[in-house]
């Protein structure tokens, strides 16, 4: 700290650097002395020599603007690290003042180190919370998926099917609509599993799921009932013959399924159909009737669709 006409500035709590119009250091206050190593030898040295990081074209232009045109500049510690001091994060203000007929450059250094540490801590904390929250949401989605969807085929599972079927049935009862239930079973699935193995069996189940989804409308629900059995809910049927369209689409789809590079299997499906209100008044009755119709098809050789 140097005795000077600017000594009063030693009583303020921000670092102050004052340079003359030739940019030679004429004063720094005691607060700045705590943040920067300066000595008596520093006096009258150019500020660019004492603070080399200021020696960039935009600072040089800024300082010129301050001295010549009374511009004022603000530089943030977030964008400019260690401009003046390595010990503290400083926001910098550049302006000029006149004293005794001379123009001086004043550099105000506001210490925001503690504030920045706190903000960065909060940012880290927030980042951790965000990551944790994201993971919890993913887990929740996975739990929902496992609870309502079949893991192998991605179709709705039996729980979800019954849940939705109740809602459709309620709507059908209220609004005098017809809804249909298809019970589907893969012919000789046990034989395929025994001959080609479980991996081939899984492949067949996945491909059948795709066939059923592609053959139905967006408003229908396709579900895996369990094993090689599938269910379809045909929503809002205009008449009992409507299932024909879906059954024909299933029948016409390519059922030659490639189970490895060398082998493919031609599969067939047995399908039984029941309708509300004709065949039953609750979901269990309707599925049971569709199952019985399917069983009848199966007994007569399979590969067919029949109504209860």
């Amino acid at each position, binding site marked *: 700290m140097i005795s000077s006409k600017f000594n009063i500035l030693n009583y303020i709590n921000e670092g102050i650097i004052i340079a003359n119009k030739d940019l030679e250091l004429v004063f720094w206050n005691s607060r700045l002395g705590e943040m920067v190593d300066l000595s008596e030898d520093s006096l009258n040295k150019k500020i660019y020599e004492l603070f080399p990081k200021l020696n960039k074209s935009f600072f040089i232009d800024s300082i010129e603007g301050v001295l010549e045109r009374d511009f*004022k500049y*603000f530089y*943030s510690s977030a*964008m400019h690290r260690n401009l003046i001091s390595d010990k503290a994060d400083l926001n910098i*203000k550049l302006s000029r003042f006149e004293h005794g007929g001379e123009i001086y450059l004043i550099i105000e250094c506001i210490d*925001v180190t503690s504030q920045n540490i706190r903000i960065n801590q909060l940012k880290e904390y*927030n*980042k951790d919370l*965000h990551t944790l929250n994201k993971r919890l949401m993913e887990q929740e989605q996975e739990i929902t998926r496992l609870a309502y969807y079949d893991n192998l085929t991605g179709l709705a599972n039996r729980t979800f099917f019954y849940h939705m079927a109740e809602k459709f049935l309620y709507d059908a009862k209220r609004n005098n609509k017809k809804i249909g239930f298809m019970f589907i079973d893969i012919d000789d699935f046990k034989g395929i599993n025994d001959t080609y193995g479980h991996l081939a069996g899984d492949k067949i189940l996945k491909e059948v799921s795709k066939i059923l989804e592609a053959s139905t409308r967006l408003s229908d629900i396709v579900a895996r009932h369990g094993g090689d059995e599938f269910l379809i809910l045909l929503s809002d049927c205009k008449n009992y013959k409507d299932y024909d369209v879906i059954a024909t689409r299933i029948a016409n789809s390519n059922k030659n399924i490639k189970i490895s590079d060398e082998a493919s299997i031609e599969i067939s499906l047995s399908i039984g159909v029941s309708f509300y209100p004709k065949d039953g008044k609750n979901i269990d009755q309707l599925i049971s009737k569709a199952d019985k119709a399917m069983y009848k098809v199966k007994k007569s050789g399979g590969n067919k669709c029949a109504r209860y």
Partner: protein
Amino acid sequence: MDPTSLTYDILKEMFNISVGKAAKILSEITSKKIKLDVPRIEFLDSKDKREVNNSFSNIPDGTLMLSSISFSQKLSGEANLIFPANKMKSFINLCLDEDSRDTGDTDFTDMDFDVIREVGNIILNSIVGEMGNFLDINLDYSLPEVKVFAKEDFKSDLASKEYFYMLMLYITFIICDTEIEGAIIINLKTRNSFEELMRILKKMEDDLDD
């Protein structure tokens, strides 16, 4: 004295030179390609409420971030730089090389405000400084203040003022591939300031004609 198409051309030229200089400084500071452009300018007079409302409907909706500096002497008023707050958050993250997707964070910290104060200072300094330079007048002005506020509050605050004369500059800010549209509103405090500006511009037009 009403502005002519030449007045608009002179001002557009002047402001594009200013924001060009600001873009150069910002590119250097951030080490990123930054472009600033003023595609359109409008004069707004409190007498013409409909015109003012039309112009304000072009300002992005929602929460806005405002940097403002006051200037005085031969012209006195306020220059306000306005950008949508959510886009400014992305801009700050780009400047600081931070990825907000890591945190989902949309709140502004004091550090963010400091970044905007610095950016606003550079842009508004260029605008007001160049205006003083171009019009050959001395302007004394402050460091910017930064605020976040709702567009509607800004509009009603303005509506409560009895008289105002404003220059509305639409500004496009492009950093890397992110484009941010905002505005600079230069609010001249008195009718005298507006007339002084028009007188200087008229003189420039006459000089160009000679």
